[in-house]
C-alpha cells in the first residue's frame, strides 16, 4: 500500500516538473526577447522610420505594415469565412456536399504556409501581374487564415442550442432574418475569438509574404493598390540575415519584442473574451 502511495507521489512530481518545464519555455522566450530587444526600445524606436539599413531610426512603418496586412486579411477573410459557414450550416443540407466542403476546409488547414507564398506569388504576382504589393499580401494571408476562422466560427454556430433556433423559426423568421436575429448574435464570441486567433497567426507569418507583399526599405504607408509595405516579420529576417552591425541586430530583437507584444495582446484578448463568456454561461 505504501508502495502505491509512493509511486503516486513520484509520478505526480514528475508531471509537475514536465509542466513547469513547458511553462519555463515561455519564460525563457520572454526573457530572451526582452533582454535582447529591450535596449532597442524607446520613443523614437516606435515612432520613427527605419534608416541606414536598420541601424538608425525605428520601426514605425514596419508596425504599420504588419497592422495593415493583419487587419486587411481579417477584413477580407471574415466575410468569406462567415458567409461560407452560414451557407454550410443554414443551407447545405445534403450530407455528401457537406462532407466535401468540410474536407476542403480541412485540407486548406493542412497546407504548409510556405506553399501559400509560392502559389500566392504565382497567382497574384505572375498570373494577375499584381506584382509585389500589399494587396497580394492581404489576399495570401486571408486565404491562409481562412481555415482558422472557418473552424472556430463553425464551432460557435454549431454549438448554438437548438431551442434558440427553433424559437426563431417558430416565429416565422426567414433564413436571412434567422441569421441576423439568432445565429450571428449567439455565435458572436466564436466569431471574435476566431478572428483574433487568425490575426495572431497572420502576424506570425513570414515566409508567405516575404517576396509577395513586402519590400525592405523605401516604403511608408501604401498610396496605391500595387505598392508593397514593410513588416516587422520580414524586417527582422532581413536584419538577422544581412546586417553586419550588432546594433542592427539589437534592433531586430527590438522589433521581435514589439511583434511578440502585438501577438500576446491579441491572444490575451481572446482568452479574456472566452473566459468572460464562460462565466456568463455558467450563471
Amino acid at each position, binding site marked *: 500500500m505504501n508502495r502505491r502511495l509512493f509511486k503516486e507521489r513520484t509520478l505526480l512530481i514528475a508531471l509537475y516538473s*514536465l509542466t513547469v518545464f513547458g511553462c519555463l519555455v515561455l519564460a525563457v522566450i520572454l526573457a530572451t526577447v526582452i533582454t535582447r530587444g529591450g535596449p532597442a526600445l524607446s520613443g523614437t524606436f516606435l515612432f520613427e522610420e527605419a534608416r541606414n539599413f536598420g541601424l538608425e531610426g525605428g520601426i514605425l512603418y514596419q508596425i504599420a505594415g504588419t497592422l495593415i496586412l493583419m487587419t486587411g486579411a481579417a477584413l477580407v477573410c471574415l466575410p468569406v469565412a462567415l458567409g461560407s459557414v*452560414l*451557407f454550410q450550416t443554414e443551407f447545405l443540407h445534403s450530407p455528401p*456536399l457537406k462532407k466535401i466542403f468540410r474536407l476542403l476546409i480541412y485540407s486548406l488547414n493542412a497546407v*504548409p504556409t510556405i506553399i501559400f507564398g509560392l502559389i500566392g506569388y504565382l497567382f497574384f504576382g505572375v498570373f494577375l501581374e499584381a506584382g509585389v504589393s500589399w494587396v497580394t499580401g492581404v489576399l495570401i494571408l486571408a486565404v491562409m487564415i481562412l481555415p482558422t476562422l472557418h473552424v472556430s466560427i463553425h464551432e460557435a454556430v454549431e454549438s448554438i442550442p437548438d431551442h434558440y433556433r427553433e424559437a426563431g423559426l417558430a416565429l416565422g423568421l426567414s433564413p436571412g432574418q434567422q441569421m441576423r436575429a439568432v445565429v450571428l448574435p449567439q455565435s458572436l464570441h466564436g466569431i471574435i475569438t476566431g478572428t483574433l486567433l487568425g490575426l495572431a497567426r497572420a502576424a506570425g507569418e*513570414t*515566409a508567405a509574404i516575404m517576396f509577395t507583399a513586402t519590400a525592405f526599405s523605401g516604403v511608408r504607408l501604401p498610396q496605391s493598390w500595387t505598392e508593397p509595405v514593410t513588416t516587422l516579420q520580414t524586417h527582422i529576417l532581413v536584419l*538577422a540575415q544581412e546586417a553586419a552591425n550588432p546594433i542592427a541586430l539589437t534592433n531586430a*530583437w527590438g522589433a521581435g519584442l514589439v511583434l511578440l507584444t502585438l501577438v500576446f495582446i491579441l491572444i490575451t484578448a481572446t482568452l479574456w473574451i472566452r473566459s468572460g463568456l464562460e462565466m456568463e454561461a455558467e450563471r
Partner: protein
Amino acid sequence: MNTRSLFPERGPAFWGTGFTALIASGTIFILFVSLVIESVPVFKTQGVSFLWGTDWFAGEAYGALPMIFGSLMVTAIAVVLVFPFALGSAILTSEFLNGRLRLMVKAAMELLAGVPGIIYGLMGIALLTIWVRDVFGLIDGNTLFTAGLLLAVMVLPTVMTLSEDALRAVPGEFRDTALSLGLTRMEMVLKVVVPQALPGLAGAVFLGLGRAMGETIAVMLVIGGIDRIPQPWFNLFASGQSIPSKIGREAAEALGFDLQWSALIALGLVLFVMVMALSLAGNLLLRRAR
C-alpha cells in the same frame, strides 16, 4: 422533393452566403490545381525518380529524397520529444490542477502557441544551436536534432491543449468508478483515463505533426541546410534539410522560372500530401474519440 431538400430556401441570404462559399471553395480549388499543374514539368522530365533521387543541384538534377527524409526525421524527433511533455502537462492540468492554476497553465500554452516562427528562429540561432553543440559535445550544433527540438517546443502548446481536451472528454463516471474500486488517482489516470482518451491523444499528436512539418523559417535557420541523407541514416546529430526549409531557401531565386521552380512546387505538393495524410489520420482519430 429532390431540389427542395437540397436548397429549400433561396432568398438573398442564400445567394450571399452561397457566393462566399463559392469563393472559399474556388480559392482552395485553384490552390490545389495550380500546385498540381506547376509541378507537372519536373515529373515529366525526371519521372518518379524525382521522389527517389538523392541529388539536388539547381539547374542539373532534382532529387527530393534528402528533403523528404529530413522532413520525416525532424518531425519524428519533434514528436518523440514533445510527447512526454505534452502528455505530462496535459494529465497534470486536466486531472490534478484546480480551476485557477489550470487556467494559468492553459493561458501560458495559448500564449506559447502564438509566438511567431521568426522569433523561434532568432532564438534558434542565438541559443539553441550553441546549446545543443555544447551539451552533446558536437563539433557543430546545426543538426536535424536541433531542428526537431525547436519544432518540439513550437508544437508543444498545440499538442498539449488538444491532449488536455481529449482527457477532459473522458466522462467522469469512468473516474468515479475507478476511484470507488480503491485505485489511486495516478492508477486511475493511467489505467482508465489515458486508455479511454488514446484516440484523442493520438489525434492531437497527428495534428501537431502537421504543424511541425510545415514550419519554414525557424527550421531553416538551424537545420544545417545540406541536401544530404546523413551517414548512417539514423545519425540525428548530422545536418540535413527539410522540405519547407529547402523551399524557403530557393523559392526567391527560382520565382516562377524553369524546372527549379517546378521542382520546388513539386516539393510543396509532396509536403502537402504528407501533411494531409497525417491530419486526415489525426482528424479520423479525434472524431472516433468523440
